[in-house]
């Protein structure tokens, strides 16, 4: 599974980032609380590329470079095929960052450890970015990207 963008219909409004941030770090989707009380950090960043934009989500690659490159075993794949970060194991070497073709996995500005899209695997339902996109420019689809 992965979330893909449809740049043709991405408005660049940024709601995906906002809801992504509010979904993680224990804010449980409460945008107001996340932004008023905390330091919400989106897992996926919006790329505004001249006239078009898209959300730079994780492709959960079949042969994932990050997973293969991680020196500490912090990058893991769960039974659903979702690649996620075991933050306790991350030593911040950024090897995964260096090999991710999408520039998706990035260090958290708070902890320095790597954060990435985990398809909101800790929450019910579809990922927050998909469910809050006002224009269906994000889709949850099966399969991973080839690398």
């Amino acid at each position, binding site marked *: 599974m*992965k979330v*893909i*963008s*449809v*740049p*043709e219909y991405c408005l660049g409004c940024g709601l995906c980032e906002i809801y992504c941030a509010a979904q993680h770090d224990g804010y449980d989707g409460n945008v107001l609380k996340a932004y008023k009380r905390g330091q919400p950090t989106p897992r996926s*960043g919006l*790329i*505004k*590329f*001249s006239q*078009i934009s*898209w959300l*730079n989500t994780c*492709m959960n690659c079949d042969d994932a*470079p990050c997973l*293969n*490159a991680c*020196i*500490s*075993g912090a990058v893991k794949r769960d039974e659903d095929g979702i690649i996620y970060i075991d933050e306790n*194991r991350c*030593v*911040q*070497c*950024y*090897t995964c*960052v*260096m*090999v*991710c*073709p*999408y*520039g*998706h*996995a*990035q*260090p958290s500005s708070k902890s320095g450890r790597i954060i990435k899209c985990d398809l909101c695997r800790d929450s019910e339902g579809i990922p927050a970015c998909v469910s809050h996109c006002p224009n269906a*420019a994000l*889709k949850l*689809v099966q*399969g991973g*990207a080839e690398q």
Partner: protein
Amino acid sequence: MKYVIIGGCIAACGAVEGIRSKDAQGQIIIIDGEKRGAYTRPLISYFLSEPSKYSDVDYRSPDFFKDRAVETIKARVELIDRPGQLLNLDNGEQIEYDRLLIATGASPIMPPIPGADQDWVKSFYTIGDAETIDRDIEAAREVVVIGSGLIGMKAAEALFKRGLKVHLVEKESHILPRQLTPGAAVSVHRHLARQGLDIITGEEVAVIHPDHQIELKNGQKLSADLVIMAVGTRPNVELAVAAGLEVRQGVVLDDYLRTSDHKIYAAGDAAETLNVISGKQEVMALLPHAHREGYQAGRNMAGMDELDQGSIPMNSVKLLGWNICSAGVTGARDGELLSWYSKEQLLEIKVRENYLIGYIAINMPEVAGPLTNAISKKIPAAAGEWQEFVERGPSLATIPSAYWQVLRRLEANGSN
């Protein structure tokens, strides 16, 4: 089919995964001379910096081999009998093989410096080394690290974090000589020096005196309770040489990761593989490569005929808070150098005919991944796009559109 792998570390793990991706039944035997199972060598510096926190350095879960029906024999191989397709082990056993993988790794180089044979002069390559040093520095206050490659730098950082006074001696003109240009090295050097690391470049150790005085060639003397040797590694090719396989610096392989004997493959730090930038076979002793080569060799051993795609030299390292990523060619002779910098950030890229061939990114993790990939996948940009990337300020949004098109992020339907 019976697979035998000499060596039990990263490349071996990759090979097991590769074999099992095609052959669920074949017998796999790993012959591993190390006491410890597969662990992540780069983690030993983290262990050294904070042993309680980083005690777990295993590369895979403890049941990794068992789950994949792999038999492990703790022994050393004395001889590869190619005509008989047999291995002679130091415990007297003989093991037959249908396919053999040489994944013997590398060993640290101990330079012939007078006094280097004293017991307080240590190499820093295995977890065993790290554990020894950890014990020895309980009473130590000062340390000299010889060599400022990645191992040396991480050793120096770990010991510095443990509260020791660290002297770093590099014979080249700047630190991280294989990774950084002189220009990029300056800022890293300053950053580390500001933190309190004593870095001496362009200088070599002449003698290590028994009185814990380390004399440099310029006559300067440093005192140290401990000396760490980190001047590089060399592939473990003795078995291959003895078996009559073709060996240069490492074991020579064809495009399918086969040695000159097509029943024998090699992968990891002992092997020479394709550097897609130089187009040459080189030893690139890096963990991600070891896994990838092992995996590919494993698949081919299991009957696939897949060309090895090759790889590029690349490194990511964090030193006292600074992240340094580099990949591809960083030497002065190749391509056009474009650079961008702001406070505590630096990006240097090397461009040759619209192709990116190398980069150094200091504290710029955002763009590192796509740049690495642009080099390794040889994705051409339109004329001037790399220049524009640097001029407009490097970011994902300024990466050449050709790159995103190859990743199919810019297609109209947006689907992958």
